[in-house]
C-alpha cells in the first residue's frame, strides 16, 4: 500500500476507507494480534449501552445461504467498564486508525446519556448511533423505523457532543431515504448503511426456530445487493436535497470488488463485518485490494470513485 489512500470524511482523516463494523470485531483487543486495526481506516466498537448486558440465550448464531443470522442481544460490558477498561486499550493501540464508538439505548434519554459520556472522552473520534438492532426483546419496532424517534435520538446526542455523529440506519423500513433525511435534518454528520435484515431459520428436525430468541439479524454476502441499493437510493435522494453527508457502506463486503460496489454507489467509507469471521485478515486484505485497484487503474484517490455509478 505505497499509495496515499487517505479519505477525508466528517472532518476526520482516515488512512484508508476500510473500517471494521460494530459487533464483528469486539473491542479490538480480542483480535489485535491477528488483524491489527491500526492498519485500517478505523474501528467501530461493539454497541455500548448504559448497563452491562448479558445478551440473549443461545444459540445466537447460525449459518444461512451466503450469510448468517445473529441474535446477540446487544451483549456488552456496559458504559462504565467500557470507559474504564476497553477504551484506553483501544486508544493505545489505534495508531492512525479512527476510533468510532457505537452506542444504543432503550430510551432516548439512555442514548443521550451514553452518547454524552462517550463523546466527552478525547480518545473517541466519532459516535455511531445504532438505530436498529432487531434482536432485542423490546420488540420489533426499532428506533430506526420511526422518524420521530430518529429525530429525537440524533438531535439529543448531537447537542451533547462535539464529535461527528453517525446515524446507523436499519434497512427494515418502507423508505430508507426519508429516514436518512430525518437523520440529516436532526444533525447527523454521516450515515451508516446498513444494519442487518430481520430473518429466521427453523430447525426442521426440532420443529422450532434455531436461534434462542427466534428472530435474528441477517448479514453477509446474501444482503449485499440490499445494502448497495440502500446506499444508491439514499445517495440519489441526497443529491436532490440541500444537505449532503457522507455515507458509510456496510453489508456483505468480502473483497475489494464488493467494497468498490458500495463506493461507486455513493459510499465514502466502508465497514467490513461478517467477512472477518470467514477470514480473520479480511479487513486488511480488502484495504490492500482497494489500494491495488487504484494503482492499477491510475486513480489518485479512492474518493474520486465515490458515487460514479450515478453518472449513467
Amino acid at each position, binding site marked *: 500500500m505505497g499509495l496515499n489512500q487517505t479519505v477525508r470524511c466528517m472532518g476526520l482523516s482516515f488512512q484508508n476507507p476500510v473500517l471494521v463494523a460494530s459487533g464483528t470485531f*469486539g473491542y479490538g483487543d480480542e483480535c489485535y494480534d491477528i488483524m491489527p486495526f491500526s492498519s485500517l481506516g478505523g474501528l467501530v466498537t461493539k454497541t455500548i449501552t448504559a448497563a452491562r448486558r448479558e445478551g440473549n*440465550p*443461545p444459540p445466537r*448464531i*447460525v449459518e*444461512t445461504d451466503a450469510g448468517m443470522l*445473529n441474535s*446477540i442481544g446487544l451483549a456488552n460490558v456496559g458504559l462504565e467498564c467500557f470507559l474504564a477498561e476497553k477504551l484506553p486499550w483501544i486508544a493505545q493501540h489505534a495508531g492512525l486508525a479512527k476510533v468510532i464508538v457505537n452506542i444504543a439505548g432503550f430510551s432516548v434519554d439512555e442514548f443521550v446519556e451514553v452518547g454524552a459520556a462517550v463523546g466527552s472522552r478525547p480518545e473517541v473520534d466519532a459516535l455511531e448511533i445504532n438505530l436498529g438492532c432487531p434482536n432485542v426483546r423490546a420488540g420489533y419496532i426499532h428506533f430506526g423505523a420511526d422518524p420521530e424517534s430518529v429525530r429525537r435520538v440524533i438531535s439529543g446526542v448531537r447537542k451533547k457532543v462535539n464529535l461527528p455523529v453517525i446515524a446507523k440506519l436499519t434497512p427494515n423500513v418502507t423508505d430508507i431515504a426519508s429516514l436518512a433525511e430525518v437523520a440529516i435534518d436532526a444533525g447527523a454528520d454521516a450515515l451508516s448503511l446498513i444494519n442487518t435484515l430481520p430473518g429466521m431459520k427453523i430447525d426442521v428436525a426440532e420443529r422450532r426456530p434455531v436461534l434462542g430468541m427466534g428472530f435474528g439479524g441477517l448479514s453477509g454476502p446474501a444482503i449485499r445487493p440490499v445494502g448497495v441499493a440502500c446506499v444508491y437510493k439514499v445517495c440519489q435522494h441526497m443529491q436532490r436535497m440541500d444537505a449532503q453527508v457522507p455515507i458509510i457502506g456496510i453489508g456483505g463486503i468480502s473483497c475489494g470488488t464488493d467494497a468498490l460496489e458500495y463506493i461507486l454507489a455513493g459510499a465514502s467509507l466502508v465497514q467490513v463485518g461478517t467477512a472477518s469471521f470467514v*477470514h480473520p485478515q479480511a479487513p486488511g486484505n480488502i484495504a490492500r485490494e482497494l489500494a491495488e485497484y487504484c494503482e492499477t487503474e491510475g486513480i489518485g484517490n479512492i474518493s474520486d470513485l465515490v458515487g460514479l455509478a450515478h453518472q449513467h
Partner: protein
Amino acid sequence: MKPVFEWVRVTQISSVAERTFVIAFKEPKSAAALEPGQFCMISPYPGSSNVYLPRPFSYFRVSANDTIEILFRTFGRATRWMASLTPGDRIGVFGPLGNAFNQHPGAERVILAGGGIGIPPIILLAESLSRLANPPRIDLIYGEASGSRVVDLAKVVPPRVCCQITTEDGKIGVKGLVTEELSRILDTCKTPPAVYTCGPRAMMAAVAGMLTPGKVALFETACEENMACGRGICQGCVIPVKGEEDATRYVCCCTEGPVFNGFEVKWD
C-alpha cells in the same frame, strides 16, 4: 501460540465408520503447539463450496510431527462438504483456538468419557496424559449409539489406557450408556479421580448429575455451541454458566472454553 489462518491441502481423507471420517493436513506450526481440548476452524477455499461460515473441530491427533488429523461425522452442509474432499483439495484452517484440558489434576486416577463424535479431544488428552512423567491410571470410555458408528481406536489409544466401548445396540463392547460404565468405574475409585468428558449435551449433563464437587479431583467438560469467529469477537457461541446468586452468566465457548469446569455449566 497465537492462532494462524492457513490455506492447506488435504493430504488424506478416509471413511472410518458410518458417516465418520478422518481428514489430515500438514500444518507444522499448530501441530507443534496445540494442546488437547483446543480446536480449529475449517472453511472452504473460496468458491469451492456453498458453505459460508467456518466450522469448529477439535484436534484429534498429530502425526509425523507436522500433520494434524481431524475426526468428524457428517450432520449438515459443512460436514457433508468436508466428506466430499479429496487429497490435494485446499481448505482454510484457523487455530489453535480455545483453552485446553487441565493435565495436572493432582489425581491418581483419570476417567475419560467420550460420547459419539465427542471422542476426538478425549483421545488427544489420553495420549498427552500417558506421556506425562508420572502418568495416572487412565480409564477411557467410548460410547456410541450403534456399533456401526464405532471408530476403531486400537491404533490411537495409548498403551496402558484401559478402554471400554459402550453401544446402545450392544453390537460392539458393552450394551448400554457411557454413564453406566462411568458409574461402575467410579465405584472402584479409592481416591477422588479426575473426570474429563466430551459428547452430546445430554450425556455431559448426565455425567454432571452423577458427580459431586468434593468427590472428584477435577471435572472438565469440552462443550459445543454454534460458532462464527472462534476467537471471542462475535459473542455468538455462549454457554450458560452459574453466575453470582445462581444467576445465569453467558461465557464464550471459543475463548473461555471449549473446556469448562463441569460443575459450573448450567446443564438444564
